[in-house]
């Protein structure tokens, strides 16, 4: 029992509630948000360290023993993702301060930003399937509010679709939970892993597994369920789009990783399905990105394609593939958010996000251009940046497992990713200076770049110092592939 595990959920919850009382004071809102996100980073980094040195940590909420009450579990995967998402939220918060109008900040932006983090951290940490649903809802309701804030016509239309699709998938989530409860009589994930391992019948379990895949697939935007994503992530301002693009779909990927390594690892057909959909997701996603001519839209469609790689990694299902999946996930959280923030910077300078209307940014704002190039190359997987090593591990693992076709697809996707990133760089950063806003040349955006710098530094660091990070990912993957440590620490078996 360790109360440290609840703190990444409790800090933003408490601070968010306190901020409801200070709706009108901008300075209080900003200071309290920054302090609480800072605390979150410190606590989650410490938690990761404790988990790394002492093993999995758990908290039984309300002191109810494990299979009956709700357990929060911090293993390497969840604690390191909590740490990453806390860091990302701090970056987005600082970016938001410089781009948001005062009115937007007054309309409960800060409380809901913190509640979103409650939902994200809670989804990572919970060890109970129904509690996972609750944290999903916390996250979704906050995201509904953040995505529709500002009430532009386009924004409202797209966020309505986002709300409806997510509500429908939540309904299926509850149905799937009901099925699995009907079959096993428990919702504690560790207990489920034991019970499903003991069950003989595989037909029902496969149906439930596919139902969960549908639910988490909708949240994480895998192939045929991704259509809602590009439009709704295009609608909100850059700081919020960066947070959503970096985190929300990754929470879906995390839940697939968690449930398929822990609860359904015996079902070979499901992993075949994951492989097929992973390949389709990445290829169709990247084709969508190639055809677009809008900075933010290209990035939004790219999220789909990147999720495909992670699904493929889970589908291959060897320790190296899971390690690669985590590495790629971490890399993607960092790089995707950084790119969205660069799109925000470019929009701030030129007043548009359409590629054909801007060019020559490299001449007027060289730092923006070069930093963007580093991040874009990292996304495309050019060594020595972080994207390369994630893909490298995935591809090696795929060759070892003999999945040659999906590996070929992923390599082709990599080339097209590079193409679409270079398209952004060549059209909007190279060439003659041409921007719709005549004052664009003299706009100073140095202070906007500062919040992005840690992300760019991290992607370089993850690439240059890949050895220790890959070692960490491999340990994490071993912990996932052998769920006995997880099960024992939750159910208190020695």
């Amino acid at each position, binding site marked *: 029992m360790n109360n440290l595990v*609840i703190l990444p959920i*409790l800090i933003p919850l408490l601070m968010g*509630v306190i901020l*409801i009382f200070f709706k009108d004071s901008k300075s209080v809102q900003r200071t309290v948000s920054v302090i609480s996100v800072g605390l979150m980073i410190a606590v989650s980094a410490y938690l990761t360290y404790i988990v790394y040195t002492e093993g999995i940590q758990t908290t*039984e*909420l*309300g*002191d109810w023993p494990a299979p009956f009450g709700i357990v929060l579990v911090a293993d390497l995967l969840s604690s390191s993702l909590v740490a990453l998402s806390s860091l990302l939220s701090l970056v987005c918060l600082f970016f938001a301060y410089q781009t948001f109008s005062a009115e937007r900040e007054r309309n409960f932006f800060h409380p809901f930003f913190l509640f979103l983090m409650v939902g994200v951290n809670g989804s990572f940490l919970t060890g109970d399937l129904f509690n996972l649903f609750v944290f999903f809802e916390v996250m979704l309701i906050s995201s509904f509010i953040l995505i529709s804030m500002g009430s532009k016509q386009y924004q409202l239309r797209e966020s309505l679709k986002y709300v409806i699709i997510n509500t429908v998938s939540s309904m299926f989530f509850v149905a799937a939970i009901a099925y699995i409860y009907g079959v096993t009589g428990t919702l504690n994930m560790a207990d489920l892993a034991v019970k499903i391992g003991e069950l003989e019948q595989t037909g029902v379990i496969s149906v439930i597994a596919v139902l969960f895949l549908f639910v988490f697939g909708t949240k994480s935007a895998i192939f045929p369920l991704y259509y809602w994503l590009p439009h709704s992530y295009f609608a909100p301002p850059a700081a919020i789009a960066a947070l959503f693009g970096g985190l929300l779909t990754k929470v879906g990927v995390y839940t697939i990783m968690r449930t398929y390594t822990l609860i359904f690892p015996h079902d070979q057909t499901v992993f075949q399905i994951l492989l097929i959909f992973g390949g389709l997701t990445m290829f169709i996603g990247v084709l969508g990105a190639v055809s677009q001519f809008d900075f933010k839209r290209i990035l939004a469609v790219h999220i789909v394609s990147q999720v495909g790689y992670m699904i493929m990694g889970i589908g291959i299902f060897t320790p190296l593939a899971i390690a690669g999946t985590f590495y790629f996930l971490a890399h993607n959280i960092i790089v995707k958010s950084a790119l969205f923030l660069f799109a925000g910077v470019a929009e701030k300078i030129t007043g548009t996000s359409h590629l054909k209307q801007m060019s020559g940014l490299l001449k007027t704002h060289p730092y923006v251009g070069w930093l963007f190039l580093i991040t874009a190359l990292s996304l495309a997987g050019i060594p020595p940046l972080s994207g390369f090593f994630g893909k490298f591990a995935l591809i090696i693992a795929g060759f070892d497992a003999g999945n040659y076709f999906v590996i070929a697809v992923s390599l082709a996707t990599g080339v097209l990713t590079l193409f679409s990133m270079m398209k952004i760089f060549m059209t909007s950063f190279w060439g003659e200076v041409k921007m719709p806003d005549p004052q664009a040349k003299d706009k100073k955006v140095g202070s906007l770049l500062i919040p992005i710098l840690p992300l760019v530094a991290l992607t370089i660091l993850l690439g240059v110092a890949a050895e220790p990070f890959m070692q960490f990912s491999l340990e994490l993957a071993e912990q996932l592939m052998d769920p006995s440590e997880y099960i024992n620490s939750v159910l208190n078996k020695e």
Partner: protein
Amino acid sequence: MKNTPVQLHVITRIVAFIILAFSVFLFFAGHNNPGGGFIGGLMTAAALVLLYLSFDLKTIKRVIPFNYSKIIGAGLLIAILTGIVGMLFGFPFLTQFDEYYHIPLLGETHAASALPFDLGIYLVVVGFTLLVILTVAEDDS
């Protein structure tokens, strides 16, 4: 309004208090019998909505000058702090404690830390219900 609905006003004045009293009963009946913060809060909100319906918005706003979003905040705060108190003594978050006390006049009383938590829920439910209904109603004008 020219025609004041006298019957409605008179009945509302009586009925609202009956509903409010019953909601308090339900609130305290909770955690051992059917009842609790959620249902008690809904009942209170129903009484208040009845008041808003029979009298107009301005009159009741003068009588009940609360900011409902702050009531939601207060309720959440109470509920979370109840959970945190246990953590200070080394128990997990949301651990509940209870004890039987003998209080003069009331006799044997069951004191549980679930009660302040329920009070938080009660405030959140009242605040939320009225905030939603009033926002929709005000939007009309």
